[in-house]
C-alpha cells in the first residue's frame, strides 16, 4: 500500500492518464480508503478546471486592426506568386 505522500504526488499524473497501470492501481487502492486523499483528488480536479477555463478571447481593436493588416499583406504576397 502506498503512503498518502506517494498517492498525492501522483494525483495529477493519475488525472492526466499518464501513470502506468500498476501505479494507477496503487493510487486507486489508496483512494478507496483514504478520505483525505480523496479530498486532494477533488481539489486537483478543481484546479485543473481553473486552468482549463476558456481563455478570454477579447482582441483589442488596435491589435485586431494590425493583425488584419498582416493578413492583407499575406494576401497581397499570395496574389503576386
Amino acid at each position: 500500500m502506498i503512503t498518502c505522500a506517494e498517492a498525492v504526488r501522483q494525483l495529477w499524473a493519475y488525472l492526466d492518464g499518464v501513470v502506468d497501470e500498476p501505479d494507477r492501481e496503487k493510487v486507486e487502492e489508496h483512494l478507496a480508503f483514504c478520505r483525505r486523499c480523496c479530498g486532494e483528488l477533488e481539489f486537483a480536479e478543481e484546479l485543473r478546471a481553473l486552468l482549463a477555463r476558456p481563455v478570454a478571447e477579447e482582441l483589442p481593436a488596435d491589435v485586431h486592426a494590425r493583425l488584419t493588416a498582416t493578413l492583407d499583406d499575406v494576401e497581397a504576397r499570395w496574389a503576386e506568386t
Partner: protein
Amino acid sequence: MCARADQPTSGTRDRFRSLAEGELPRLYALARYLIGENEAEDVVQDCLLRAYRGYAGLEDESSGPAWLSRILVNCFRDRLRARARQPDLVELDDADEFSLYRKIADEDPFPYSDSVHLDFLAQFGREDVRAVLAGLPEHYRLPLVLVYMVGYHVKEVAFMLDVPFGTMLARLHRGRKLFERRLWDYAETHGLLREEARA
C-alpha cells in the same frame, strides 16, 4: 493563361483568410499566456506569416485551428531560442513539497465556509489566473498552458517541445507545484483571503 498547378487559387486564399481571421482572438489569447502582453502580437504575426507559407501542406481543413496553434507554439519557441535564454532557475526545492490543499486546510482563510477549498479557488478570475501563470518561468508555464489550457496530451507536448516524456512529466509536476504556491502568494498579496473578499 492557365494557372500553374502549384499556384494558390483565390479559393485557397479565401479559405486561409477565413481560417486565420476566425482564429485571431484565440491565437492572441494563447500568445498572451505563453509570452505575455508585450510580445503576443508579434508572435501572432510570425505565426500568420509562417502559416501562409505552409498552408498548401495542410491536408485536413478541420485541423486548421490545431495546426495554427502548433505554428504559434513553434514561433514562440523560436523567439525564446533567439534570445538564448536559459530556463529560469527558481527555488523549487520547497515548491516541490508545497501542497495548496494542505495550506488552505491549515490556514483556513474562510472560517465560516463549508467548502473552504472551493471558495478559495472561486476568488480567482481569468485575469488572476493569467497573472499567476505569467509569473511562472517559461520552462514550466509552457507545459501547463499547452496541456491544461489548450488540451494537448502530455506526449504531444513532449514531442512538440522536443524533450523526453519523463522530463515533460517532471516539468509538469514542478510547474503545478509552483503554480499552487504562486496561487497562494497571489491570494495573499491581492487581498483574496479576507472573508469579505468572498462575494
